């Protein structure tokens, strides 16, 4: 077997068998699932009956909303401004405003409220509205089919339909998602949009995850190198393999551990959420999540593509989140995550390996860690600006410069990034990590056999130019 593969295998197995890995693997999804589940659950707790006004300009949904033990619906027939003042005056919980659609079918609505609206209400509204719209569409389709089957039925010619039953395709086409935008009315009756954009959250989450992974697994590489150095086994190993093989074996092995952990998290989180939903379907039905999570009835991307993520707001709704996540280009996102995780990790992992090789114990790493981690920390600091202005020059440069690009680019991607920028960033990152690995290899080779010496930056510079 190839020696580098042997090293990768050992590094991988020795880490995934560790207790800390197993604990992290279990705790991570529990925390993430809790992030999904707890808000949904909490929303169920309040028990007073809330008054919800409805102003329906389309007339499609008159009497479709049914009163429950939690909500009382009251229809208004006036203009939006007076509806708002009625709602405020009567201390209502929310006002649902369904404007006349530009196109034929209503697909969006606004919710005005004084406080943040709970996801249960939004889930219910969404549910009722989409069902109604779907019914209407289905009716229209059936009419079309009838016309097709009996050409004499109506003189209107239609050559788009095919098939003589309501086909799956039609069912797919009529599937409707409703955009709900919440707007909070301030104390003085002013409107302020309560943005918690999903793309923001998804981007931030991905960026922070990359930051976290780079730190976590980069420092694992460093600790591994120090361990080998301190236990002196390194001399035995480098008499069998080249130091570069040992270093790369370790870096790749740890990267695989990171990917394994990531995939396990994704799978386990989905599993936990699904189990929870199955166990308590009623809690989630209103939030329309069972449907979303069940792959069998999942809305195909094509049906969703008309919804732009920028318009989908109020992220505390699981259904909305997933909808929005789906609306973001999934393929690009996953590909970019894996690419930027690996690229960023290789870049920093190589630097961490070099640091590990240069010192005798972990306490000595401080002086070298500082400058290396500053770009990472800077990226997290800058993240806030990027989210507020994903197209601005700060966002652009930080997502191009390789030391910060893995984090900042991940934050930007959900907002949509031109492909040439993405490509430029990836190419630069690749070049940089190759360079970093080469440099680290040089430092590593000299450092691992050097003991009892306080190494300075100048010294490290010299090591770069030592001959084999």
């Amino acid at each position, binding site marked *: *077997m190839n020696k580098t593969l042997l090293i990768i295998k050992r590094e991988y197995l020795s880490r995934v068998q560790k207790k800390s890995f197993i604990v992290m693997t279990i705790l991570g999804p529990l925390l993430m699932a809790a992030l999904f589940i707890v808000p949904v659950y909490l929303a169920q707790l309040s028990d007073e009956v809330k008054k919800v006004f409805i102003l329906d300009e389309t007339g499609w949904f008159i009497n479709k909303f049914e009163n429950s033990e939690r909500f009382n619906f009251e229809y208004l027939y006036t203009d939006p401004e007076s509806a708002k003042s009625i709602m405020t005056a009567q201390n209502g919980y929310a006002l649902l405003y369904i404007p006349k659609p530009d196109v034929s079918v209503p697909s969006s609505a606004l919710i005005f409220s004084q406080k943040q609206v709970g996801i249960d209400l939004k889930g219910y509204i969404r549910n009722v509205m989409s069902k109604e719209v779907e019914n209407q569409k289905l009716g229209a389709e059936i009419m079309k089919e009838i016309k097709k089957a009996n050409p004499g039925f109506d003189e209107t010619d239609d050559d788009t339909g095919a098939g003589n039953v309501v086909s799956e395709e039609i069912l797919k086409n009529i599937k409707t998602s409703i955009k709900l935008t919440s707007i909070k009315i301030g104390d003085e009756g002013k409107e302020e949009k309560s943005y918690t954009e999903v793309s923001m959250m998804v981007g931030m989450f991905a960026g922070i995850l990359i930051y976290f992974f780079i730190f976590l697994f980069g420092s694992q590489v460093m600790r591994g190198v120090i361990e080998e150095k301190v*236990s002196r086994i390194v001399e035995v190993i480098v008499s069998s393999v080249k130091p570069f093989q040992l270093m790369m074996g370790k870096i790749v092995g740890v990267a695989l551990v990171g990917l394994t952990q990531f995939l396990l998290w994704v799978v386990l989180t989905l599993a936990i959420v699904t189990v929870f939903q199955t166990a308590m379907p009623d809690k989630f039905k209103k939030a329309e999540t069972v449907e979303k999570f069940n792959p069998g009835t999942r809305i195909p991307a094509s049906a969703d593509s008309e919804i732009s993520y920028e318009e989908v707001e109020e992220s505390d709704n699981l259904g909305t989140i997933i909808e929005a996540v789906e609306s973001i280009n999934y393929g690009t996102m996953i590909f970019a995550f894996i690419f930027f995780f690996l690229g960023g990790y290789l870049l920093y992992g190589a630097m961490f390996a070099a640091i590990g090789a240069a010192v005798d114990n972990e306490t000595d790493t401080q002086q070298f860690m500082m400058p290396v981690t500053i770009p990472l920390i800077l990226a997290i600091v800058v993240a806030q600006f990027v989210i507020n202005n994903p197209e601005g020059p700060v966002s652009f440069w930080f997502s191009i410069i390789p030391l910060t690009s893995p984090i900042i680019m991940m934050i930007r991607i959900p907002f949509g990034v031109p492909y040439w920028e993405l490509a430029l960033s990836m190419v630069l990152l690749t070049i940089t990590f190759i360079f970093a690995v080469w440099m680290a290899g040089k430092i590593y080779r000299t450092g691992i056999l050097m003991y009892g010496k306080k190494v300075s930056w100048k010294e490290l510079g010299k090591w770069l130019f030592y001959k084999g």
Partner: protein
Amino acid sequence: MSYFSVRNITKRYSGHTALTNVSIDVPKQSIFGLLGPNGAGKTSLIRIINQITGPDEGEVFFDSEKLAPHHVDRIGYLPEERGLYKKMKVGEQALYLAQLKGVNKADAMKRLKYWFEKFEIQAWWNKKVEELSKGMQQKVQFIVTVIHEPSLLIFDEPFSGFDPINVNLLKDEILALRDKGATIIFSTHNMASVEELCDDIALINKSHKILEGSVKEIKKQYKTNTYSLDFDGYSGAAEALLPVGFELLDEQSDDDLRQAIVRIPEKATQNELLQAFMPHVNIHAFKEIIPTMNEIFIRKVNEASKPFLNL
């Protein structure tokens, strides 16, 4: 014909020169002692042999080929600073290190079983290294050094950390390895074991080789024609009995028994000394004082560090 040779090696580090134009020749199937005080350059030389570092000048030949990366699988190296993964299980680790030396898994298992039985450590196969005593770890380290049946073995202070019983066990193993055909380079400060095991030596001091040759030859070369004579039954000065030209270097007495250390002049024989003493004393012992490797080592190193005394 030398199995392994180093030709005019020079190795410089930024601050100093570790090896200056050093050449050694290690005959096949012999034990070669690589001696020298701390910091002389032994470790640098060993690392060059192991291809951990490369020389700045000079060449290394292994079995009449120029030393190349593929040779690492035929070299076994036991470094002075022992090291194993502390958290890894003994058997797993031995298997890993054997595979890194290019032994396939099945062979490695077979050979490990043999060695673990021989050293009576089978019960430790599934223990973590950190649970083992130091001596036991040393045994494991020795096993992983020889597991790939290398034709060239490099032992750096192999006996440190062993009790006398295990030192003997190890010595026997090293000799057995040589008899089976291995060539061994042996670096140590323990001169008694050098005399016991080594066929040839090289002495390195301050990056220069200052002495080399077979142990027998070197010892012969450093003989000083000095003898010790134990006797009693005589109360006068021993010096009075000496023939002309003989020199009394030292005299000691323990109760009645006295010992004289005498240097015999060139051309004279030890018999003349005996003849001079015999009429007057009871002789208990008489023997030539042969310098130990230890003395030769100290003498050569001191000479090298104070060259002006040598004039």
